[in-house]
């Protein structure tokens, strides 16, 4: 995405290339142009641009892609953490609940 880069070397995106059938769905659904088709197979060309939305993994018909996706905002994650420990809920984290 032009003008914006987030932290390096954190994205959990993984592509098992031998499984890939080259259908190109991951290229279609990725809003950050992380993938490219090289010959008849997809490859990850910009892993650091991945925002872990999970669209590629869900839309891969042969399950060649894995990524740890989920809520990405700080208060949402604090709430997840609190709820796992049954400690209640932080206010203000209901932006998209």
């Amino acid at each position, binding site marked *: *995405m*032009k*003008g*914006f*880069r*987030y*932290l*390096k070397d*954190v*994205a*959990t995106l993984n592509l098992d290339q031998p499984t890939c059938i080259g259908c190109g*769905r991951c290229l*279609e*659904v*990725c*809003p*950050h*142009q992380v993938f490219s088709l090289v010959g008849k197979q997809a490859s990850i060309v910009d892993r650091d*641009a*991945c*925002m*872990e*939305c*999970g*669209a590629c993994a*869900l*839309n891969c*018909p042969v399950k060649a892609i894995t990524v*740890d*996706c*989920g*809520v*990405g*905002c*700080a*208060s*949402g*994650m*604090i709430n997840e953490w609190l709820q796992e420990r049954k400690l209640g809920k932080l*206010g*203000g984290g*209901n*932006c*998209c609940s």
Partner: protein
Amino acid sequence: METPAGRVARISSVLGPGDHLGACLARWGIGRMSYMVPAGLYALGNPAAADPILVTANYKMSYDSVRQALVGRNCWLLVLETYGINVWCAAGKGTFGTGELVNRITSSRLANIVSHRRVILPILGAPGVSAHEVARRSGFSVSYAAIRANDLPEYLDKGLTTTPAMQSLNFNFYDRLVLIPVELVLALKSIAVAGGGLFVSFAVTSGLGAGLTAFLGWLGACLAGIVVGPLLLPWLPGRSFAVKGAVAGLVWSVLFFLLVGGQAWGAGPTIAAFLALPAVSAFHTLNFTGCSPYTSRSGVKKEMRMAIPAMGGAVVVSLLVLLVGRFL
């Protein structure tokens, strides 16, 4: 209008003053959680069996942006039940998802209404929808069109082709600006409660003036984190949102110090202000990762592992410095 599968409501592409007012209020958090339209199939213009089916969420702002983009065209609009949540957030939660899409295709009896077997989805709906699953369960193939509804006419005119521009995200100044009101409203309670506590503690121990000063410092730090950090996002240094927020907060600390005559404070309160205020701003800007379309969950986790202890530490140290200064 009448269809082989019964009556389908016909809707207009033109937004009235009420639609604009509703959107404006929702941006400020007013009626936002119930800003929705009934899910189901709608007819835009006078669609025939061969016309395309576009899928959207039942958040009214999503639905409005799609129907407005399609002015003068004949299309079917299939609105999914996302409980008033936009496409992107609903896809993340799975309500804009495979199951709902398949059910809605079936319950609307789409197969009886159209002659083709294709539904057109927004790209940002893809995190919730598995295209091959939808095809397997409903017989309808999924085409991901564009990120923005505005690009739909071009997509349709080009014979359902997505150009690179339709597939790339923007997050310009205006895109960020419209997100800020609701962030302010959501933070209002915590700003008021903690700010009130701060005001009372300072007012009781050091007089009304000190209470007001402390409240002003707190308020400014919150605004630096909620308003200034997000607006100046690409220009603030670093990749970490917490660092960007801390920088905005540090600038506010300097302004605040000069504005209220901090030279007379002494060492303790000065150290406390310069530690705690940037930490407050950092927290709020870090929270804006939830609104940004390019931050990853793992990245936010990494930031939080470092930033939360640092912010907490800064606040604790500044409180200790103030307490020690008071009793020595």
